[in-house]
């Protein structure tokens, strides 16, 4: 969070304490601001939180351990389908979410190890290809496991997934305060997701400066040397895959409960690439960067979608470019400029895996070293 605060232009470096409060205030007030533009925006914000979790998880694998994973969305799928299997009328099982969510996380972690084991010796592009294949295999399985025995209900997906029920309180019903005032469930979901995101951030921050985080940094920079200084690279890589997958699994479970519906098309290759783009855009290896990247790339396309049509109508009296086309076009342009101007992302990772306090104090010397 300190990093997030410091990243605020101007204020961040002058008054870190104030900047920190700004971050907290923004995080808490975000849905209230969003609702001024319509309820859809609160929904987008909810999704943004899920993407932040995904980005944090993928960053663990790609940013920290340097293992390029193009099939990350598979773990999201595993989490979502676990939730759907264990809490929906599909098998007529309705377990409480505090059982289902950990189960989803566990299965995702297991899937992470299953992916990790055969790919231990692979690096870079080779690893990317295999993980890409893995992601597609999971999706195709989900798409086709409705025959001969119906497990996943095929392309139709699973409907009516149970919502989150906290202590007997179904949050999808919203919160009734008094006679006339009702808090919409979209807001409630936002704060639940925010809690998960905050928890993830704390966990990952601890992890980054731990022995495990250092081992990952070593493997990322030079795997052979990492072995030579006594790091068990096999276990550390498997750990990176499974821990990263856990975040995907939790996020997937929340997605299933929030959406009330899961189907294979939510877990396409494009989604994996989208999450990867978020962390590259934001700053691979930097927690704050990754969060900003996920927020920016979830919000930008939506903003474009809402802005593109009225602007074109005002300028040319008709819609020349379909917003969907324009969205991809502008996004690609944004990526290209990003790579040209800030190749290491919006908020680049500093080299240190540890002692962020040193970096804060010695900002200028850090810059000079580069």
């Amino acid at each position: 969070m300190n990093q997030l605060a410091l990243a605020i232009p101007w204020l961040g470096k002058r008054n870190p304490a104030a900047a920190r409060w700004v971050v907290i205030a923004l995080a808490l007030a975000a849905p209230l601001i969003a609702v001024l533009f319509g309820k859809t925006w609160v929904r987008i914000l909810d999704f943004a939180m899920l993407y932040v979790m995904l980005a944090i998880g993928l960053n663990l694998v790609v940013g920290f351990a340097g293992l390029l994973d193009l099939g990350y969305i598979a773990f999201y799928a595993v989490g979502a389908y676990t939730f759907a299997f264990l809490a929906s009328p599909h098998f007529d099982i309705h377990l409480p979410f505090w059982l289902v969510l950990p189960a989803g996380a566990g299965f995702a972690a297991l899937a992470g190890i299953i992916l990790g084991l055969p790919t231990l010796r692979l690096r870079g592009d080779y690893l990317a290809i295999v993980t890409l294949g893995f992601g597609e295999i999971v999706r195709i399985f989900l798409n086709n496991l409705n025959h001969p025995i119906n497990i996943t209900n095929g392309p139709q997906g699973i409907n009516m997934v149970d919502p989150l029920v906290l202590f007997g309180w179904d949050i999808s019903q919203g919160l009734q305060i008094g006679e006339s005032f009702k808090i919409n469930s979209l807001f409630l979901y936002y704060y639940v997701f925010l809690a998960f995101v905050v928890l993830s951030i704390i966990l990952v921050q601890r992890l980054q400066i731990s022995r495990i985080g250092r081992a990952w940094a070593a493997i990322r920079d030079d795997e052979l040397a990492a072995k030579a200084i006594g790091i068990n690279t096999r276990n550390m890589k498997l750990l990176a895959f499974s821990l990263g997958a856990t975040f995907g699994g939790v996020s997937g479970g929340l997605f299933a409960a929030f959406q009330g519906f899961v189907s294979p098309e939510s877990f396409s290759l494009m989604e994996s690439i989208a999450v990867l783009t978020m962390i590259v855009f934001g700053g691979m290896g930097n927690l704050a960067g990754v969060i900003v990247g996920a927020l920016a790339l979830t919000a930008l396309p939506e903003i474009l979608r809402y802005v593109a049509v009225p602007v074109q109508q005002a300028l040319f009296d008709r819609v020349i470019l379909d917003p969907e086309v324009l969205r991809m076009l502008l996004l690609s342009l944004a990526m290209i400029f990003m790579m040209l101007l800030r190749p290491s992302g919006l908020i680049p990772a500093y080299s240190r895996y540890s002692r962020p306090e040193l970096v804060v104090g010695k900002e200028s010397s850090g810059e000079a070293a580069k």
Partner: protein
Amino acid sequence: MSDATKPLLQLRDTKISYGAIEAVKGISLELAKGELVSLIGANGAGKTTTLNAIAGLLPVAGGEVLYDGAKINALPAHKRLRQGLALVPEGRGIFTRLTVEENLRMGAYCRRDSDAIEADMERVFTMLPRVRERLQQVAGTLSGGEQQMVAIGRALLSRPRLLLLDEPSMGLAPLVVEKIFEVIRSVAAEGVTILLVEQNANLALEFSQRAYVMESGRITLTGSGADLLADPKVRAAYLGE
């Protein structure tokens, strides 16, 4: 402590292959405790392969590797380090995106005795004063010689009993090489056993007590550094005379 005359490291007819290709075709060598021995030979003779296999980075296809009297053929690399067997890999292998200090501390990754680690850091600093000046610098921005020193310093922080050095002179200017070798000499003076792989035969032979000459996967000559330096065959093959 075990018998002083017993070798610290012993290879017995060790074979190492990459798939179907046998890169090292059965070599035997030994190092007594405290010795400084070099392994010289042309490109592709199998020197680095041998060193990597001793460090556990490559599997041994045949024969035996004995360390401190115990067979370690199947011991994984990270466990070998814990027994005091450290490698400075070819091309230095420093962690380019971490700072110099972080690189050094990585060497102590397997240790938990933080007081002793701090003492060892000081010891490394006195040996490598240049490194101390650059502690907060990102290691990838150092010069080649400085990187080599960091790599050696990092290995020293694991408190090795046997240090395997793979071509510490590679790509460095002669003056820098001299400095690196001074450092190696002071490490040896502290009682660390060293196996040095070098292409710079002249330097290595002058420098070490004994040496092995490797040629396409076999050891063809062995003797004291001075003897090999005087050997006409060695002079013809490696010293360009």
